[in-house]
């Protein structure tokens, strides 16, 4: 025989519904807090990183012009760009993250589906192609930086 409770059934029902609503609100707030944190980090870091990327893009152009004399300076700046993009990527909205992932994959395409190819394998034509892509990435980040001021 089931033990009878002194709490009325209607009160138990309300408690159960409140718990479910509370859980939904908590999950919502968790995602909202994460978005706000990301937005704060982005507003703090994006201007400086965009400025560094802009300088690196210009350096790449200068170094690509003297590629026949040696490709090492250009490769060093590409490595710097890779570091900067990997740093800013987690702080960006999903759409921008996809865009940066696409650029990074192009910078170091995977060999045999697993290994990343080395930057030293870049050819001059490929490097100019990446320079053009980088321009698009930097322009998008500049626009995002402008948008962030209104967040």
């Amino acid at each position, binding site marked *: 025989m089931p033990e009878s409770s002194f709490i009325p059934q209607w009160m138990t029902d309300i408690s159960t519904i409140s718990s479910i609503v509370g859980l939904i609100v908590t999950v919502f707030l968790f995602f909202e807090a994460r978005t706000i944190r990301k937005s704060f980090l982005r507003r703090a870091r994006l201007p400086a990183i965009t400025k560094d990327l*802009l300088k690196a*893009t*210009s350096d790449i*152009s*200068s170094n690509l*012009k003297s590629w026949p004399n040696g490709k090492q300076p250009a490769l060093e700046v590409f490595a710097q760009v890779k570091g900067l993009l990997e740093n800013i990527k987690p702080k960006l909205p999903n759409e921008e993250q*996809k*865009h940066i992932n*696409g*650029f990074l*994959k*192009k910078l170091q395409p995977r060999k045999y589906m697993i290994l990343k190819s080395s930057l030293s394998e870049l050819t001059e034509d490929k490097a*100019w*192609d990446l*320079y*053009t*892509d980088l*321009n*698009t*990435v*930097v*322009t998008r980040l*500049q626009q995002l930086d402008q948008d962030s001021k209104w967040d």
Partner: protein
Amino acid sequence: MRFQSKEAQLITKLIRLTNDGEIQWELKDPPRSITMGTNDFVPLYFEAKYKDKFVTIYQQRCQHFSPDTESYYWTENIVFAILDAQDRVIWENRENFPALFDLFGTVREKIAGIDSLLDDLLDDENEQSFK
């Protein structure tokens, strides 16, 4: 994923061609189609002929009014444009695109002959150090 706009590809191509000396730019006065009916100032204007079209890149200083400070201020843009044979602007790009600044810098270096200028200066320096 495709990133590149056609404008970006064209500008990169022009940087390469300019650097390789395959396209010759000229320092000129801006045509009336660019200067007429505006107070904008064009301090440097370069033009080149490429595939039967005239491509141009120039510095443009524009005056704006700030309602907050109630004063005028100047901004500077780099503009890339394609002109027809009558100097009419048939297309222009004035977005803040990093490659535009690189193209402008490359053209300016070529026109000024920065490489040979620095070589000359360094030669003089070397001569003096040997004396």
